[in-house]
């Protein structure tokens, strides 16, 4: 099986630990992922802010870089949703772009989907002795319907105490450029999410999207709360002998 890692521009640039964790986790499970060097960004920021032409250009690039693989693994529910939900709309019904999209879309998996559905693994042999809560990001939850896959994986992690997040299904207020264009509303939503996280008493907040975590973590950090945010992949990659790094 030829597997491509679509690391996403946010992880590539700001959160390389997440990308490294995915590579090592997959390697531990016997999968050597390839990193197609031509990839950059799925185009979601442009598409969702109303820059359709730029989004189409980036979508073309992405499918060109990713086609031909048996599976594309994306450590982001949001970028996976972009590819699966929006690419077909951007591509239209015919032409080479539409063909490429039709080829890539069914093979695109968010990380936990790939682990649970393709590899059939729920215990990835991880060890993470911390109290953790999980925030199902909107695009994971309502976009690609990850369901309880992340929780199933987390429950098998040794040493990990999983605590439920109250109001988990509510948006954290990130929303890409929404966080800038409607900064006050975004911050108000984030404040409620932060309060919910603090109420759990968790040491670590995890999610399948670093963009939402950057937003929630940014406020947790500003408030000097001591709660750490980390991508799910980094928890799943941790073992008794080695941390995610």
């Amino acid at each position: 099986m030829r597997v491509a890692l679509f690391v996403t521009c946010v992880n590539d640039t700001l959160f390389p630990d997440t990308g490294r964790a995915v590579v090592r986790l997959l390697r531990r499970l016997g999968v050597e992922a390839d990193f197609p060097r031509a990839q950059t960004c799925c185009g979601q920021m442009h598409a969702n802010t109303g820059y359709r032409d730029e989004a189409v250009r980036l979508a073309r690039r992405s499918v060109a870089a990713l086609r031909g693989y048996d599976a594309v693994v994306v450590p982001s529910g949001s970028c996976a949703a972009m590819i699966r939900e929006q690419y077909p709309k951007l591509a239209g019904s015919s032409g080479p772009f539409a063909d490429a999209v039709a080829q890539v879309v069914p093979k695109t998996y968010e990380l936990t989907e790939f682990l649970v559905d393709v590899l059939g693994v729920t215990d990835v042999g991880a060890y993470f002795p911390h109290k953790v809560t999980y925030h199902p990001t909107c695009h994971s939850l309502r976009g690609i319907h990850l369901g309880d896959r992340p929780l199933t994986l987390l429950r098998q992690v040794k040493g990990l105490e999983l605590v439920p997040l109250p109001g988990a299904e509510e948006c954290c207020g990130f929303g890409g450029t929404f966080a800038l264009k409607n900064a006050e509303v975004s911050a108000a939503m984030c404040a409620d999410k932060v309060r919910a996280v603090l109420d759990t008493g968790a040491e670590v907040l995890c999610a399948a999207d670093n963009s939402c975590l950057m937003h929630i973590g940014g406020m947790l950090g500003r408030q000097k709360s001591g709660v750490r945010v980390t991508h799910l992949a980094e928890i799943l990659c941790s073992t008794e002998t080695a941390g995610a790094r």
Partner: protein
Amino acid sequence: MSVTFLGMPPTRPFPRNAARALRDSQLRFNLRKATRTIRARRASVVAEAPDWAGLREAGRAIKEHTLRNLDRYLVRLEEAVTAAGGHVHWAADAAEANRIVAGLVKATGETEVVKVKSMATQEIGLNEALLEHGITAYETDLAELIVQLGDDQPSHILVPAIHRNRAEIREIFAEHMAGWGRPAPEDLTDDPAALAEAARLHLRERFLKTKVAISGANFAIAETGTMVVLESEGNGRMCLTLPRTLISVVGIEKVLPTWRDLEVFLQLLPRSSTGERMNPYTSMWTGAAEGQEFHLVLLDNGRTGVLADEVGRQALRCIRCSACLNVCPVYERAGGHAYGSVYPGPIGAILTPQLRGMGSELDRSLPYASSLCGACYEVCPVAIDIPSVLVDLRSRARHPWPERAGMAAAGWVLERSGRLARLQRAAGRLRRLTPRRLPGPLAGWTDTRDLPEMPEESFREWWDRTDGGRR
């Protein structure tokens, strides 16, 4: 082309309206409490219906089929209503609808009308228009009464006074009821039952003596000419049955093809809107019922423009249940007034810019009044994909130049992986210089959130340096 009127003039852009609402802690408390109450109720009665997904799909398809054959069904409706003794009028815009209604009221010789809560008449600003003709319109729905007495604007489709709590309502009643008719009782408390009783007494006389009523309709059945109004309090029944003349102003998208279609919508609407298995009262009448004079005013007011839009036309499926408002995290915090239209919330954010166009700053800002979290789409009983319509509208909005420049720059960098890699390396070297506060529009982030730390090397640098961790 004239600009479609939607009940209130476009004001400042959404983010500024929202920021003001956020500073009103009472408003935030009221909205949070109310939306959370109704959210839980809706979820429980929807979960109770084992065939909800089937009903939702049928609701979507029936509405979609109706829109695709709207001309046929409108003509059919007209024939059926006329055959049953009713009169049908067509209004291309708000001004024409107001003219027609004012003319019909004047023909009765009356100067007072009672009104059933209706979005269509709010949309066209009927009360204000009637006043110019010397006709006073009395709102009879409790929430509309609160809005009217308080000289306020509605902030929710179903519960226009959702922004008011019981103490504020008591104040409004005590202060303003006397100016509109029977005063509030001296010893009025803020107990909801006492407030409802005060409204009952205040409006009782009015119902018994007023000769003309104005309503909207939730559904109009083309096959039979039957009009359907769902309500809770009985004020609707009072208006629909007691007056001699009844005028219903109905958007052209309210038509349903067949009587049988009600079996779907009478399940979808109450569960989605008030979170009840069934609302207390539903009235159905066909033409001139029980000797009443009945006029149906069919309203376009920009709807045919929406119908022409391939992506946006699904907004016309809306049955005005408000489920999308109640579940929306942005609505919950910004409140309905921030949307500057009688249609607030997620549905307003796609309906208002389509009906009114995106000429004003407010209307251009509405498609951005969403984090695209998708909760609205999930609860919509007719499956309107609100996030997709928002994204489509955003692609047609005029964007501010600093944003255009930023997006173009980002697009340029991301178009070649080499450019991205160079930028990442530069950023890695300058990481110590990352400011704590960002300038300009980016300050919105750093006002409340820390920036993430820039890593020393990007993922792709690591990959190249270590051959994907194998070295």
